[in-house]
């Protein structure tokens, strides 16, 4: 039995890293479903795909680059540039399809340029694509400093159409599990990429260039393969994938901003590694990209459903998983090596230790997650019953700007709204010229009477900070799990201005936080909930 099994494994060894990822992600999902009833909902499963089509596309492109033994750090820059450029062009009233075509061409041109630098001028891939990333991200801010909203009908249609899953939904009532057309696009890309990688000359050349841990380029050249052309094409292909991912991201969030997708390239590279592709090149499967993305998604979902662990645990878990997979790859490499030449016992022992260490780490991670879940049954009960993953985390409430406007119409001179944070609050305060301060957080009200002079000092102070000048401008970035989003409106001496910001970043003007702390000094506090 054991022999049969090991023979089977030896025969299909090349699929092992990929299948380990697949099994691990499925197992993690099942554990989650056992612990949190909410995860048994079919929609949560489909959300794994619905929330990350851009990640999947980027991972596919990156897999090709890594298979040749290169690397592309420019992904995040090109994605951000695509969102901003598309949003800016759509704002000018361009045709949506034309814009998409242009963006894809731009991405390909970007990739081809970097590929040419790498291939013909022999610049290190790391350096060339890094410079590319900076250029792309910098260009975003030549186009626009602020986020640009997209209201194009084609974009809305693509982003908001719900494709119901047969078997999990009711076609009559249009209720049930669904995915978006973007997921279909991502899967089409996956299918095409798999075909290209394994059934075309181009694909075989890629494997030939990256073979032997990336040292095979010379042999490929001597075999008469078009090495230079293929390398440029691979970077062009990844530029295309990045641009497509950017288009899909801009559809998904229906806006464009230069700060989108920060650090995205590292998520992508980690997903490629977890998908079973060797970073040295030449080994791996494009199809593994799907599992790399899946395991990232499952990790996030588990952490969201747990509710106790903050979102930054995702980073730690992904880091540990990467370590685990690299350990596994290294182990497999030795096994393969042993078939050719028996490694010294010392080497074998070290590898074995590594694998056991890696598996131990993996087990510990899963164990920690389960333990964290079990230690807090109350929280789980509350979270687990929620129907979708999204409602399990603190969602940024749609801002109550209308409420704020209503309060201003009533005569308030300052409204202050903050929502989010670790306790997921949504508070709105209004200060009236007569010193009355009221606050609501949806359920409760507080009130406080300050002096007229206090209000005057506060407003004058805010004015003197430069509130009504260009020093204060709107900023927004994806909030961290613990961050607050602020909306502050001030009316003073006939001027009115609303400025929004999210803390936890460096984009908002520094004086904004001084204004926030001034206001915090005046407003009443909600009583602590037990």
């Amino acid at each position, binding site marked *: 039995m054991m022999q049969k099994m090991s023979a089977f494994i030896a025969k299909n060894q090349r699929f092992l890293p990929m299948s380990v990822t697949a099994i691990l992600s499925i197992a993690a999902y099942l554990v989650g479903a056992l612990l949190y009833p909410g995860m048994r909902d079919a929609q949560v499963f489909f959300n794994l795909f619905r929330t990350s089509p851009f990640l999947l596309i980027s991972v596919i492109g990156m897999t090709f680059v890594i298979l040749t033994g290169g690397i592309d750090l420019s992904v995040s820059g090109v994605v951000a540039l695509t969102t901003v450029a598309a949003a800016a062009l759509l704002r000018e009233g361009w045709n949506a399809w034309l814009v998409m075509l242009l963006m894809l061409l731009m991405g390909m041109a970007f990739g081809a340029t970097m590929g040419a*630098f790498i291939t013909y001028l022999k610049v290190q891939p*790391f*350096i060339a694509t*890094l*410079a590319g990333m900076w250029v792309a991200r910098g260009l975003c801010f030549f186009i626009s400093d602020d986020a640009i909203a997209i209201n194009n009908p084609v974009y809305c249609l693509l982003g908001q159409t719900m494709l119901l899953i047969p078997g999990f939904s009711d076609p009559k009532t249009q209720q049930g599990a669904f995915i978006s057309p973007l997921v279909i696009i991502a899967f089409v890309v996956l299918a095409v990429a798999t075909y290209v990688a394994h059934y075309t000359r181009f694909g075989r050349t890629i494997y030939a260039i990256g073979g032997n841990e990336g040292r095979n380029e010379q042999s490929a050249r001597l075999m008469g393969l078009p090495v230079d052309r293929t390398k440029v094409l691979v970077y062009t292909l990844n530029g295309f994938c990045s641009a497509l991912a950017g288009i899909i991201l801009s559809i998904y969030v229906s806006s464009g901003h230069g700060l989108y997708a920060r650090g995205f390239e590292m998520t992508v590279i*980690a997903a490629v590694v977890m998908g079973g592709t060797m970073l040295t090149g030449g080994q791996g499967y494009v199809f593994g990209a799907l599992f790399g993305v899946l395991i990232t998604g499952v990790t996030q979902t588990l952490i969201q459903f747990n509710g106790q662990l903050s979102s*930054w645990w995702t980073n730690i878990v992904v880091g540990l998983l990467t370590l685990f997979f690299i350990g596994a790859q290294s182990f497999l490499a030795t096994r393969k090596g042993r078939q050719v030449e028996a490694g010294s016992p010392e080497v074998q022992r070290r590898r074995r230790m590594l694998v056991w260490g890696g598996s131990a780490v993996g087990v510990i991670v899963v164990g920690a997650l389960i333990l964290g879940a079990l230690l807090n049954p109350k929280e789980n009960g509350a979270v687990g019953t929620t129907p979708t993953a999204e409602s399990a985390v603190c969602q940024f409430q749609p801002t109550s700007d209308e409420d704020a406007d209503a309060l201003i119409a009533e005569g308030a001179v300052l409204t202050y709204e903050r929502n989010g944070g670790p306790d997921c609050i949504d508070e709105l305060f209004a200060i009236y010229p007569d010193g009355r301060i009221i606050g609501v957080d949806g359920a409760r009200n507080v009130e406080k009477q300050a002096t007229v002079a206090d209000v005057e000092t506060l407003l004058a102070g805010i004015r003197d900070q430069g509130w009504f000048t260009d020093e204060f401008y709107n900023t927004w970035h994806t909030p961290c799990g613990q961050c607050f989003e602020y909306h502050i409106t001030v009316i003073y001496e006939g001027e009115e201005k609303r400025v929004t910001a999210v803390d936890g970043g*460096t984009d908002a003007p520094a004086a904004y936080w001084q204004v926030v702390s001034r206001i915090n000094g005046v407003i009443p506090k909600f009583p602590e909930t037990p």
Partner: protein
Amino acid sequence: MKPKIAFNWKKMIEHKLFFPFVALAIILLFDLIFIPGFFRLQTKEGHLYGNLVDILRNGSTVMLLALGMTLVIATGGVDLSVGAVMAIAASVAAILMNPVIIGMKLPPDLMKFINDPNFTYAPLWQVITVTLIVATFCGMWNGLLVAYVKIQPMVATLILMIAGRGIAQLITNGVRIQIFYEPYAFLGSGWLILPFSLYIVALVFLLASLLTRKTAIGLFIESVGVNARSSFFSGIDEKKIKLLAYTFCGFCAGVAGLVASSNIRTSDANNIGLNYELDAILAVVIGGTLMAGGRFSLLASLIGALVMQATTTSMYAFGVPANAVLAIKGVVVILVILLYSEQVRSFIRRFTAPKEARS
């Protein structure tokens, strides 16, 4: 007479510091022409201020990172985790000064206490020592993975790069801790005629120079970078050398984390040192150290870091918006790298060589 001049020319071009200096000179020349008053220096309260001082001051973090990175790159590796290690160092330092903030709801009267510029939980020397030890351990972890477990450097350090920021937030429980303790803030934002951080850079540079040039370690590092296997056969313990390089890099990242966090007076695990690993690597590459390993020059790396910072500062002075500066930095990097490429070098050589060839 003439051949002698040509010879000097050649020697100068072949010198390690030539290209970094040329790059720096070109940028400063641009400033001289296009930005009036860029070179103006003034003294306020006995301290020196001006754009040139700003370049040195803001560049000190990258200079520190570049020192450690030079040794790592010289062994043929790379360390992507320095930015994350900076974040970890900043979190450790902040938590040592302000431990009450973790996970506890502070009673309101304590807020006053925390805002007190003389309040710290652990004394300054402890804060610095513990932070540097933690950072050094981070470097050692990378070194162990690279040297003993034999994982590719880029992948091995990628692990800490991804997990590091999470760990930093784990330490501070996701809170951005403000730093009010004045003596600590002096590290990054104090002045002793020149910015204090420059003295720190000088100290670390001195340490690294002594380590590499007054002992055989520098030679060993270069030997490992050129060919690890033959170094091993000639009796150099390449594993220990690699471990040392990564450990030192972690130490430098820790110092950089101290300087950066004291400069902005907060432990911002999300943003401290973000993308600094890339700046540091480019500084080293501009300094002429090959990514494949081998010969290195610490001074050239420092100048490389200054090239990066001078570009940024000049663009700010020129009025380019902060975020858009990245694009220009990217273009400068490409130009500098092209300057180094074999094609351009052979062109320059052809330009200067003929006379000698004839004689």
